[in-house]
């Protein structure tokens, strides 16, 4: 029975900076910066180990159109290893690395195919003189591709399996740029056996069969907003059998975002112990990788004031850092304090006094009342300040968080003093 085994990966973003961290210990910076490269190397290692027939990369190899040449060289070295092992690689570029910024001075190894941006090309994958499959693909010629590229695909009667490689937003997924939009139904039409998709960073098997439509997700998380294992799919296509796609984690550094309810903890020591226990548990789950975890402390606690004080937060941070300072692989904890005092906001709001008015006003602000007053209060920074464009992307959820934090600021000072 003919089988075709390949690795499907996408969104390598191999020269991307990590995001969403306010500070990183210098000793960890290098490892974090190298993580995307390392993740790609892990894929190459996997390909060599599994002796796959091909490696397919569905866009966004690089993070920025003006990617660093060093990143390209490193990427090329990985491809060279594949090529030397006789494993062909197929690359379709996405919105982050469109062809128009591709350096034409780099020569790629023999077995590397970069799909063009003006048409869908089909390239065979041969093994022992037999055509195992044809890989169809198209790259983003530029960043803002809003055309439906799926419509350009068509199985042309080539022998072997047909695998479509596309960087696209299938089904108009919210929270993602609507590049190369298409629908699942449109992916049915070209007669592919497997759609190797890129663009969505969270892996997803959109459809398991006929055809299989799969987002492999990114190979390495770059912020705590991308928690959990990241990697690629090891795909096996066999005649008469449904496609088999097995996820393999390739990330070099694991990002996690966790909340820890400390409402039952009555001392800072207990909170610290709870934090360390949770982080150690996460480190154990990271499978020998470095771990970056954003741990958000929540809940109403008697020691809320101590925690939110500068000294309290700093002290906790230092204790955590000292605890994990020598751990290998590394553990980096980004501590976010979102606890509340142990007062009952709802009860306070039901009173007839000043505090009740304060709480009521906060509740009204949280549901969108008094927008003008809010705008006016925030205007000096968010509207009038010269650098406000850096804050344009702050969202409604940010505002909700500010209102929540503002309420804590007030109630911590007024209610605790009663």
């Amino acid at each position, binding site marked *: 029975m003919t089988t075709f085994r390949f690795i499907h990966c996408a969104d390598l973003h191999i*020269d*991307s*900076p*990590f*995001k*969403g*961290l*306010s*500070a990183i210990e210098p000793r960890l*910076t290098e490892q*974090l*910066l190298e993580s995307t490269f390392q993740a790609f190397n892990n894929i190459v290692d996997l390909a060599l180990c599994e002796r796959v027939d091909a490696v397919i990369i569905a866009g966004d190899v690089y993070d*920025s159109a*003006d*990617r*660093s*040449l*060093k*990143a390209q*060289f490193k990427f090329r070295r990985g491809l060279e290893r594949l090529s030397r092992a006789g494993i062909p690689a197929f690359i379709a570029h996405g919105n982050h690395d469109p062809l128009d*910024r591709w*350096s*034409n*001075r780099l020569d790629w190894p023999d077995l590397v195919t970069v799909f063009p941006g003006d048409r869908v090309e089909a390239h065979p994958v041969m093994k022992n003189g037999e055509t195992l499959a044809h890989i169809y693909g198209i790259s983003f010629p530029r960043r803002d591709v809003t055309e439906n590229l799926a419509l350009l695909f068509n199985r042309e009667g080539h022998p072997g399996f047909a695998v479509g490689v596309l960087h696209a937003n299938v089904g108009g997924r919210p929270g993602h740029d609507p590049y190369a939009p298409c629908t699942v139904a449109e992916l049915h039409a070209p007669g592919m056996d497997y759609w190797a998709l890129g663009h969505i960073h969270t892996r997803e098997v959109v459809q398991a069969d006929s055809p299989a439509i799969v987002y492999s997700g990114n190979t390495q998380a770059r912020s705590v907003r991308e928690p959990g294992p990241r990697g690629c799919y090891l795909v096996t296509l066999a005649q008469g059998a449904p496609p088999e796609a097995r996820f393999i984690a390739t990330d070099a550094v694991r990002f996690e975002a966790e909340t820890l309810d400390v409402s039952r903890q009555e001392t800072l020591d207990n909170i610290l112990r709870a934090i360390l226990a949770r982080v150690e548990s996460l480190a154990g789950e990271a499978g020998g990788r470095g771990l970056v975890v954003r741990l958000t402390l929540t809940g109403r606690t008697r020691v809320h004031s101590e925690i939110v004080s500068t000294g309290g937060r700093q002290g906790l941070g230092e204790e955590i850092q000292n605890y994990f300072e020598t751990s290998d692989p590394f553990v980096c904890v980004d501590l976010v304090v979102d606890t509340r005092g142990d007062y009952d906001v709802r009860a306070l709001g039901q*009173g*007839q*006094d*000043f*505090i009740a*008015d*304060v709480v009521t*006003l*906060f509740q009204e602000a949280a549901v969108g009342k*008094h927008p003008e*007053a*809010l705008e006016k*209060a*925030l205007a*000096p*920074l*968010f509207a*009038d*300040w*010269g*650098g406000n464009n*850096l*804050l344009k992307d*702050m969202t409604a959820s*940010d*505002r909700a*968080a*500010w209102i929540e*934090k*503002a*309420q804590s*600021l*007030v109630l911590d*000072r*007024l209610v605790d*003093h009663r």
Partner: protein
Amino acid sequence: MQIRDIYIEGFGRFRDQKVGTFEPGLNVIHGPNEMGKTTLLELVRRVLFGFPDRRENTNFYGMQPGPGQGGRLHCVTRGGEVIHISRQPGTSGGPVIIGTEAGDLHGDAILGGYLGHASKDIFRNIFAFTIDELQSLDSLSDKETQSRLYGAGLGSLSLAQAENEIEKITQDLFKPRGSAQKVAQAYKRIRELARRVQEIQDGLGTYDQRVSELDNLRQQAERLRQEIDRLETRRHALQTRVDLFPVALEGQQAKEELAALENISDFPEHGLETLAAYKSEEKNLARQIDDERNGLKLTEQRLEGLTVDQDLLGQETEILALKESTQEIRNVLKDRLTLERDRDQVSARIEENARQIGPQWDEARAMAFAWSEAERAAVQQQQQALEEARGEVRAAREKLNYHREQQASGQAQKPNAPGWVALFAWSLLGAGAAGALWGLAAGERLFAFAMGLMLAFGLGLFVLQRREKPRPPEEDPREITLRQNLERAEQNAAGLAATWRAWLEEKHLAPGLMPQDAERVAALVREIRAQVRERDRLSERLAKMRETIGQAARRLHSFSSGPELPPEDLPARIQHLGQALEAARANQRETATLQSQCREQADKIARLEKRRAENSAELARFLESAGASGEDDFKRRQAVCDRRRELSVLIEGTVRQIQARVGTGEAFADFSESIRTLVPGEVERDLERVSAELASQQEQKDALNRRIGETQTHVEQLASNDDLLKTQAELEMEKHQLRGLAGEWAAGRIALAVLAAARGKYEQDRQPQVLISAGDILSTITGGKYVKVIKPVDGDLVIEDDSGGRLGILEMSRGTREQLYLAMRLGLIEEYEKRSEPLPVIMDDVFINFDDARGERVVELLAKFARPRQVIVMTCHARSLEIYKKHGARPIHI
């Protein structure tokens, strides 16, 4: 609860007095000053809430603990129950009794129930107050009053502190035009990082362009290199011509000079050196000949000056023999004196020894003294017999002496009675006799008997003592024997001594000489004999010496006449003679040597002459062989040959030098030809021009290489640049920090905005009912001038006039302030009574600072206020009393 009567047992100026009866509604107590109005007010306070502790600093109104003190209030509750509250001073405020229809109840807890659990402070500050308390803001500041005034939770609210804190947080984060705040600092870093990212990205965009530029530059560099190579070749050729032209010219000139010189063949090698050698040899030989002739002349002069003493040389054997004996003569002369002195000394010792033997003794007697072995034995025997005889005499004498000592000691050892015995006996005799006499005389017979016994005992003892007297000595036979023995021994010894003395006399020896000394005499005799022999030997040696000296003197005298020399001069004369002989022999030898030397020198001069003649002949042959007519001609020909050689070497050198630069064969021929056609100056100009062009091309090449290096470095940097990712990461972190800071700032500003909004809402909509009521009352009192009493959320009370203007406490007049406080108290009372037992309101002359209009309005207000309750006012003014009465107040006079 309302008061009907006040009964005073003892308090202040009151004793067992009742004040009343008070009605519901408005009551007015009128009395002049010091009639006890304030005392009554205080009594009501103390009966209801306790007397002060003795330690408190207050007016006790003359109160003492115990009966007859305190007071009682007759009251009626809101429910109509009549109670009597009585209290006396004591601990914990004093015991309180609540008399009810059901019986007496005790304790403040029970009373508290009737008072609606109003506190002492509430009653004092709100219900029963004086003008002083009305004027004091502090009287409304107790916690409960505050709570009732402003509502729960706001009285001590630290809103301003909270606002300040939050304001400070936001100020630290951001100020619109600030640059030191965290947001501004983060923004500054972000802009810098963004600029760096942009720079790096711009650089990345130029990678392809840079690589093309690099290729282009390398091609340019290659072209330039070829051009420089061509110019280098050209410049080298020109330089060679310039460098070698003087060399070639020199070679040419040398050739021409060589051709012009005389060609001399077969000229000997090293001719000049050879000629010089001949000349030098000739000069050398001439000098040697002169030296030898002078030497010969000197030798002959020395020979003539020498003479030889042949006579002396003829007696050489004898002189040598005499010379050989010189040392022996010297020894004899030296030893002769010594030997004579030794001989004299020996003779003196012989005399000395002879005199030691005896005065008449000399050398001859000593030599004649005979001392045979038999004589020696006889003398020893004589000596032994004499010693034995003397020993016997000593022994006999010792025995006799010993015997005599023994005898003497035997006499001394016989015993005698001691003296005390006689004394005792005499004592007994005396005492006994006296006692017996006294006893007899006294008739004491027993006593006289005892004394008689004592007398008898003393008599006996006396007799015994008298019997012990010694006897005279008798003749000792042993003494006699021993004495005889001694005499015999002495006689024997004397005989032997006489024999010895006879022997001494025979030998001519001293009569006192003891036998044991005879050996010494014999020894002296032996020594004298040895010394005589020594003296004879010395005398013999002296005779031989005298012979030797005489013989030498005689021989010397045979060589020279004159008087005989003293022996001491002999060695010097012999030495002088020896020296004369040596001088004669030396002259003889030198004469022979000089004669031989003269002969040798003459031979040498002859040989040198011969060699000089040969050298002259060889020189003439040499000049002839060189074709020279003489030495000067020879030197000229030699100079021509030397010059020809120099020119040949020079020509070869120039050829080699040129060939080293241009090569041999055809290249050399071409170069030689080009040199011949060369125009001096033109080549230098060509060279200068080519060099300038070359330098220019080199500069271009260097510049190009620098650009290639820079471009190469740039390309490599672009290819290996890690900065982009790092800087982007830093930028992302900074952006994230900025968002965090912005969020913190936003939270702070929202908090402040909400607090401001809440503050406004509170002041507008959420003033306590007390203040609303107080505002209405104040409006009534002030005739509508002030319409509102407002308590800002975190500030002091203000009153607001009808146009919205606000006035703080400190800004009010005293009257207005008192009216405000009165209004607040009335408001509080209304508020209080909604939930609690109403209490009587008692005011002590609190309106004295009100003007007429407001005073009138207050009384009217009070009358209305008192309708549902009981109000008791106190005044000392009759006019006020009338006003109160006009408004229906019940007057009570004290």
